[in-house]
């Protein structure tokens, strides 16, 4: 053993270890004081894990949906010559850009017919996307409901097979469309005799079943999977299904030509955000259910401005061909996607001079190694805002306030929780002073036996250190176990209190996401041990300074 190691070993005299170990095992009051450190550490680990779980999910989704950089043109007629712009971008950025897509982006209103004859209007972000390239710049396809669309996006209505694993998902696609059109046609052949009764049935559907109303015999057979939502209500004998005629007539007036046969034709396809056409709620037995106002196969009407200098509203019918569920409620409740070329035609987005199509923004995906801010600044330099008037933003810029708020929240929570541990430190300080007072005579004895003041001090420091290790170690284990079984614990608390801990209807997560960062755990543990040691310094100094004679006489 070399001299240095020998010195270290000699420095750690046996009595300090033995006494601090015995104190640890016999002073339960100190263990009680360390419980607050334990709880603080456990809470910090849980909070940090949940916060980083949420943040990670949020970043992943936001980033996925937003693409890396968006070059937006606010001119009503849009950005001319997108191909030239894309060439320029490719030239400026070189390998830093891996994909680009042109997008037309316009605010719009969607009108969904409800089964009770009323309709529902919602504001939406209407996006014309290029099916071939849009999926390359952002995670779009994985959030579509139909498995085939996830691999090969198409705006043509599929026969069926929409998210078969989802519980309560209504029958969709052509299967649903044909059944619905058949139902509508059958009903439209009936004389609309009881409008008054039907109206009352809308208001009080369960109060008094309408006996006079009978379904026609030629209603097509209900697809087997159908179980809830619009279609189920419309099948109910007491429901006023002939109200569909009214909306149908409006619908026909605006969009239908005589030759359009909804039985085997569709309008331009639209992919609606999940929350636009659903309402999520909890049943009495606690199950989360989506109520579908419309589903793939149904038609909706969308109103949006044209691209001219004099803004006019355009009314168009679209057929819902798929649903989009990113589980970010902000996007799911506003995004609706249609093919780029169709939207350009509908809005008349052609450059007045060249006649080429225009777009409202270009979205870029960068090489993962490229620096987001640098690339953005290079683009800003190349397309100066004074000349082009474009807004060039990274996804972080666009979500800046939200990201900053979440970051701030995490920081504040960490500070608050660490303060809790610091408060616990004062508890340890008080307990330690008490123990030093209680041990005054023993300290005198140790000094009379030749223990140096430094040695007496280090008994209490190593006692504080070992308490810190025990407290934060137990806290760490508790915290990690808590994080691991967080969802089970949340479920148990729900059973116990009857209060919902984690509401999936708000967060769109099935479970609470958690990410445990080992570095955070290590820092929290080190911090807690340091606080315990810091709290034991003053009492240890007091112990070291005790006069041996006075200590021996202490009663």
């Amino acid at each position, binding site marked *: 053993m070399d001299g240095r190691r*020998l010195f270290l*070993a*000699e*420095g*750690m*005299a*046996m*009595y300090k*270890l*033995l*006494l601090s170990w*015995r*104190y640890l095992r*016999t002073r339960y009051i100190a263990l009680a004081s360390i419980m607050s450190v334990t709880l603080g550490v456990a809470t910090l680990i849980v909070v940090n894990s949940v916060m980083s779980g949420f943040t990670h999910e949020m970043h992943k989704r936001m980033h996925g949906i937003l693409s890396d950089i968006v070059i937006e043109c606010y001119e009503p007629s849009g950005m001319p010559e997108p191909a030239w712009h894309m060439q320029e971008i490719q030239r400026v950025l070189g390998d830093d850009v891996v994909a680009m897509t042109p997008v037309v982006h316009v605010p719009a209103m969607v009108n969904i017919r409800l089964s009770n004859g009323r309709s529902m209007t919602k504001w939406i972000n209407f996006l014309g996307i290029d099916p071939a390239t849009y999926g390359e710049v952002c995670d779009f396809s994985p959030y579509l409901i139909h498995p085939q669309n996830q691999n090969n996006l198409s705006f043509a209505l599929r026969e069926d097979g929409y998210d078969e694993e989802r519980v309560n998902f209504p029958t969709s696609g052509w299967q649903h469309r044909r059944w619905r059109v058949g139902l509508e046609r059958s009903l439209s052949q009936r004389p609309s005799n009881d409008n008054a009764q039907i109206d009352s049935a809308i208001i009080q559907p369960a109060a008094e079943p309408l006996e006079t109303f009978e379904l026609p015999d030629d209603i097509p057979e209900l697809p087997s999977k159908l179980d809830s939502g619009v279609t189920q209500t419309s099948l109910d004998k007491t429901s006023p299904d002939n109200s569909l005629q009214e909306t149908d007539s409006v619908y026909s007036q605006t969009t239908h030509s005589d030759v359009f046969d909804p039985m085997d034709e569709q309008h331009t396809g639209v992919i609606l955000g999940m929350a636009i056409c659903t309402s999520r709620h909890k049943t009495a037995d606690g199950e989360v259910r989506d109520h579908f106002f419309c589903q793939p196969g149904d038609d909706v009407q969308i109103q949006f401005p044209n691209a001219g200098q004099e803004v006019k509203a355009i009314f168009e019918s679209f057929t819902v061909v798929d649903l989009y569920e990113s589980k970010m409620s902000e996007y799911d409740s506003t995004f609706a996607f249609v093919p780029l070329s169709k939207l350009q035609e509908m809005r008349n987005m052609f450059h007045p001079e060249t006649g080429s199509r225009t777009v409202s923004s270009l979205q870029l995906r960068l090489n993962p190694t490229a620096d987001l801010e640098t690339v953005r600044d290079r683009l800003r330099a190349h397309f100066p805002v004074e000349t082009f008037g474009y807004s060039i933003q990274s996804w972080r810029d666009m979500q800046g306030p939200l990201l900053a708020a979440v970051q701030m929240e995490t920081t504040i929570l960490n500070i608050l929780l660490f303060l809790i541990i610091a408060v616990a430190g004062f508890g340890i300080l008080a307990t330690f002073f008490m123990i030093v007072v209680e041990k005054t*005579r*023993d300290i*005198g*004895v*140790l*000094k*009379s*036996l*030749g*223990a*140096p*003041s430094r*040695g007496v001090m280090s008994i209490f420091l190593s006692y504080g250190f070992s308490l810190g290790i025990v407290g934060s170690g137990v806290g760490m284990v508790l915290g990690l176990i808590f994080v691991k079984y967080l969802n089970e614990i949340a479920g148990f608390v729900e059973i116990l209190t009857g209060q919902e801990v984690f509401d999936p209807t708000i967060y769109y997560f099935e479970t609470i996401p958690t990410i445990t960062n080992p570095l955070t755990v290590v820092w929290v543990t080190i911090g807690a041990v340091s606080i315990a040691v810091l709290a034991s310094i003053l009492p240890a100094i007091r112990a070291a300074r005790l*006069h*041996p*004679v006075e200590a*021996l006489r202490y009663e």
Partner: protein
Amino acid sequence: MSSALPTSIKPESRRIHSVDDRTLPSGKTGQHHVSPADQSPALLECRQLMKSYVKGSVTIPVLRGIDFSLTAGEFVSIIGQSGSGKSTLLHLLATLDAPDAGEITFEGNRIDNLPSSSRDILRNRYFGMIFQFYHLLPELTVLENVLTPIMISRGAVSYLLNRRKHQNHAKDLLELVGLSHRLTHKPRELSGGEMQRAAIARSLIAEPQLLLADEPTGNLDRSNGLDIMKILRTLNAQHNLTIVMVTHDNSIAQEADRTVRLVEGLVEKV
């Protein structure tokens, strides 16, 4: 309580007072086997020791110029009434406290003005102390209490490497004081007499040259007190241990070779 005291000391028990090469902080080698009759230099000597305590604005003189010396192998009792300053004198001799004036020499070296680290070593290796209230550490077993001075002077590694040797030594000492059946007991499980025996064993573990006893029988009944005195006498007679004992009890003080009476902070001239 067992009062059986080994009449014959085992050869290894001689270690309690064996000659070793330890030196004082000043570097002087210890001297042993000096009979009180010899006119050899004093093992411990104090000259004109003064000590007073300040209570608020009042200064209370406790020791007012003590002259006292002790040769190796002597058993001296210091007797005096309560408040005569005998305990204060003992604390000064043990370097637990510093005198206001005067000096104390141990083996010819001045010890009252040593730095605290040297005084710690002195108390740990050269002096043994026993107290009226035993002062065993309640968290430790009897054996661990006896080993405490060794644990203080040795690093953990060095202690653990030689643990068996130290433990055997401690067990021998506990056998010497008749407590070998109580090794793993905690002090609270012992009687007063047993605790004092354990304290004596602890004071001997570092093989000291001087035992300082502060009212060792003060808290014991007569029978137990006599047992403790018997042990001290044996240690003095058979192991040549120099002992200074403070007591207020005349009959206990008679057990010593020599008695020094303190009256109002001064040594009474006989």
